[in-house]
C-alpha cells in the first residue's frame, strides 16, 4: 500500500494534514485531517446576554473575526426582531469588505504566492521578490485600516454592537482612509496584473457544486437572507431558517463520514463559489476583472479560487473607495444605536465570510439569555469538497513522483484557504478515527 502523508500542513491557518492511501484496488482513503484543539465556544455563550455573545464568538477565528462578530449580531437582532438602520448595514458591509481585502491579501500573497513563485514562504519570497511582497502587505494593511476605521480594531472588532455601532468613524478618519484607498486602487490593479502573469500549475480538474449567500444587494457579503446552491445549471434556494437542509452536517464517530453534503454531493464555498453562484448579477466591473484574469466561474480547477480572490480584492477596494467617497460627499447621520429589547426568539443569519457562507443560529429565552447557539463555518463545509478534489488529483495523476502528487494535494488544500480554527468545532478531528 502506498501512503502519502502531509503533517503538519504549512501555510494555512491552524493545524491540519493530508492522508492519502492507495492499495492495489486503487484509492482507499483520502482525508483532510484537522488537529486543531477543541474550544467548545458554543457552550461558553450559553446563558449569556446579547451584548456578550458577539465578542465571544468572534474569537472562533481571528482572520474572519469581523464576519463572526457581524453574523452574530445579525442573528441576535433577527431573534429580537430588531431592524438596524440602512447606514448601519452599509458600514457593516464596509467592515466586511475590509476583512475580505485583508484576508485575501494575506492568503494570496503570503500563503499561496510562494507556491507559484517557487519559494517556501513569504519571508524567503520577500528577499527574492520584494516588490510583490510589499504590494501584498500594502493591500493587507489597507484591509486592516478599513477594519480599524469602522470596527475599532483589525482583529476582533470592538465597535460593532447590537443595534448599530458604538461610535461612528470621524471625518479625519474617513479622509485618511480615502487617501489610502487611492493607493489601494493602484495596488489592486497591480495585483490583478500579477495574478494574470502567474503560471497555472496542474493540480486537478473536477466539476463541483457551489453555494453562496444570496438575496442581498450588489456583491454583498453582509446582506442576503438565503443560501443558493448551484449544481450544473440547477439552482436551489434555501431560506436562512432552513439552512440545515443545505449544510446537513452529520456527526459520525470514528469515521470520515462527517461531511456537509447536499444529496450526498459536496459543494465548494468561497470567492470562486460567490462568482459562480452570482454569475448572472455580476457588475460590468467584476466581469472585466474576471476577463483580465482569464477566469471563468464555475471552473473545474480549484486553484482558480486564488484568482477569484484577486477579483474580489480589486472589486472590494473599488467598492470601498466609492462608498467612502459617497459618505464624505453626502455625510452620515450621528444616529443612536437601535434599542435592543430582549425577547424570546430564534434568529438565523447568513453572511459571506472570506472563505464563504457563514451561518449563526441562536435561540434566546424571554430574558434575552442565549439558550442555544449553532455556528456553521465555511471551512467545515469545504472539507468534503477538498477531499473530493484530493481524490480527483490522485485519480488523474499519471505516474508522477510522490513528491509531485504531494505538492498538488497541498496546492489544492491551500487554494481553499482553509481556516482550521473556524472549522474545528464542527468537523471530525483526525484523532477520532
Amino acid at each position, binding site marked *: 500500500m502506498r501512503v502519502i502523508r502531509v503533517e503538519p500542513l504549512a501555510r494555512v491557518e491552524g493545524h491540519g494534514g493530508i492522508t492519502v492511501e492507495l492499495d492495489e484496488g486503487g484509492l482507499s482513503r483520502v482525508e483532510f485531517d484537522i488537529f486543531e*484543539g*477543541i*474550544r*467548545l465556544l458554543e457552550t461558553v455563550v450559553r446563558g449569556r446576554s446579547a451584548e456578550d455573545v458577539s465578542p465571544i464568538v468572534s*474569537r472562533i477565528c481571528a482572520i474572519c473575526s469581523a464576519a463572526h462578530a457581524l453574523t452574530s449580531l445579525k442573528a441576535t437582532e433577527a431573534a429580537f426582531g430588531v431592524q438596524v438602520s440602512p447606514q448601519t448595514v452599509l458600514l457593516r458591509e464596509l467592515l466586511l469588505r475590509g476583512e475580505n481585502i485583508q484576508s485575501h491579501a494575506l492568503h494570496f500573497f503570503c500563503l499561496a504566492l510562494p507556491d507559484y513563485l517557487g519559494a517556501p514562504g513569504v519571508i524567503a519570497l520577500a528577499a527574492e521578490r*520584494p516588490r510583490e511582497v510589499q504590494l501584498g502587505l500594502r493591500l493587507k494593511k489597507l484591509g486592516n485600516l478599513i477594519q480599524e476605521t469602522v470596527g475599532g480594531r483589525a482583529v476582533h472588532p*470592538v465597535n460593532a454592537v447590537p443595534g448599530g455601532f458604538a461610535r461612528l468613524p470621524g471625518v479625519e478618519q474617513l479622509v485618511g482612509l480615502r487617501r489610502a484607498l487611492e493607493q489601494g486602487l493602484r495596488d489592486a490593479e497591480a495585483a490583478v496584473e500579477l495574478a494574470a502573469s502567474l503560471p497555472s500549475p496542474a493540480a486537478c480538474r473536477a466539476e463541483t457544486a457551489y453555494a453562496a449567500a444570496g438575496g442581498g444587494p450588489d456583491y454583498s457579503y453582509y446582506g442576503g437572507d438565503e443560501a443558493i446552491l448551484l449544481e450544473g445549471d440547477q439552482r436551489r434556494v434555501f431560506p436562512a431558517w432552513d439552512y440545515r437542509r443545505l449544510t446537513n452536517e452529520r456527526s459520525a464517530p*470514528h469515521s470520515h463520514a462527517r461531511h456537509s453534503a447536499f444529496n450526498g454531493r459536496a459543494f465548494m464555498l468561497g470567492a470562486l463559489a460567490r462568482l459562480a453562484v452570482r454569475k448572472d448579477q455580476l457588475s460590468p466591473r467584476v466581469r472585466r476583472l474576471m476577463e483580465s484574469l482569464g477566469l471563468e466561474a464555475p471552473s473545474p480547477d480549484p486553484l482558480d479560487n486564488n484568482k477569484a480572490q484577486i477579483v474580489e480584492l480589486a472589486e472590494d477596494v473599488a467598492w470601498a473607495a466609492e462608498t467612502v467617497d459617497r459618505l464624505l460627499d453626502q455625510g452620515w447621520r450621528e444616529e443612536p444605536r437601535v434599542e435592543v429589547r430582549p425577547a424570546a426568539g430564534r434568529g438565523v443569519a447568513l453572511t459571506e465570510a472570506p472563505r464563504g457562507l457563514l451561518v449563526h443560529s441562536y435561540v434566546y429565552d424571554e430574558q434575552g439569555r442565549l439558550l442555544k447557539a449553532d455556528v456553521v463555518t465555511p471551512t467545515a463545509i469545504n472539507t468534503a469538497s477538498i477531499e473530493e478534489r484530493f481524490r480527483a488529483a490522485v485519480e488523474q495523476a499519471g505516474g508522477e513522483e510522490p513528491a509531485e502528487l504531494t505538492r498538488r494535494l497541498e496546492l489544492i488544500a491551500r487554494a481553499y484557504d482553509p481556516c482550521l480554527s473556524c472549522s474545528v468545532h464542527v468537523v*471530525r478531528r483526525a484523532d477520532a478515527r
Partner: protein
Amino acid sequence: MSRPRLGVFGLTGCAGDQLVLLNCEDELPELACLTEVRDFLMASSANDACGELDVALVEGAVAGRRDEERLRAIRRRSKTLVAIGSCAVWGGVSAAETPDRHADRLAEVYGPAGLCYDSAPARPLRELVRVDWSLPGCPIEKHELLELMAHLLEGNLPPPADRPVCAECRMAENDCLLARGAAVCCGPLTVGGCRARCPEMGVPCIGCRGLLEDANLPGALEVFERSGLPRQAVLAKIRTFGAGAPAGGAL
C-alpha cells in the same frame, strides 16, 4: 549580537496573535532581517522543527495531549519562551467554563464521539512549563509586541505591566462608563496596555487582557452591585477570558 533565532507557534486558539504579528505590515520586512525566523508554520513550509531557538513566541492554550507535547518540545529547544495572547497567558475564552463540566460539554457539542477526542480543559502555558514573559491581550496589541521584540533583540525584557485599563482610560480623559452606572466595565480590574481601546469607543471593557495581580475584586463587585448589576453576571463576564476569577460563591 547575532540575529536571534525565532520560532512562532500556535497551540489552541484563533491565530489572532500570530495574525497581529503578520499585521505589522510596516515593520515585518525589517523584523525578518533582524531575526532569523526558523520555525513559523503559518508562514512557511521550510521550517527547522527541532533546532535550538533563542526566542519562541507561543500563542494559544493547552487543550489536549497534542498541545502539551508540542509545548514541552518548544520549551526544551527555546532559551526564552514568551506566551502571546490571553489564551496562552490565561487560558482564554476556552477556559471560561469551569473544568469539571468538560466531558458534558464535549458530549453536548460532538455527541458521544466527543469523548474519544484528544481534548482537555484549556490551560495557560505557565501551568505546564516555565514562561519567561507574558504578553496578554485578545488579541495582543501591535505596539506592545513591537516593544517586546525591540527588547528581545537587545537580549532583555520589557518592564512588567502593572497598570489597569482604567488608568489609561483616565489619562485619555474618557467619560467613565462605570460612573454612568449602566454597564459592567472591567477596566479597574484588567491588565492595561491596550490604551483603553474599548472604553475609548464607549464600549465597556470586557477584560480580555486578564485580571491584574492586585485587582480589588471584592471592591469592584460592590461597586457593580450598587449599580444594580447582578454579581453572577459580573463574575461570568470577568471569567470570560479565563483569567481565573473565583467561581460564583467564592467571594
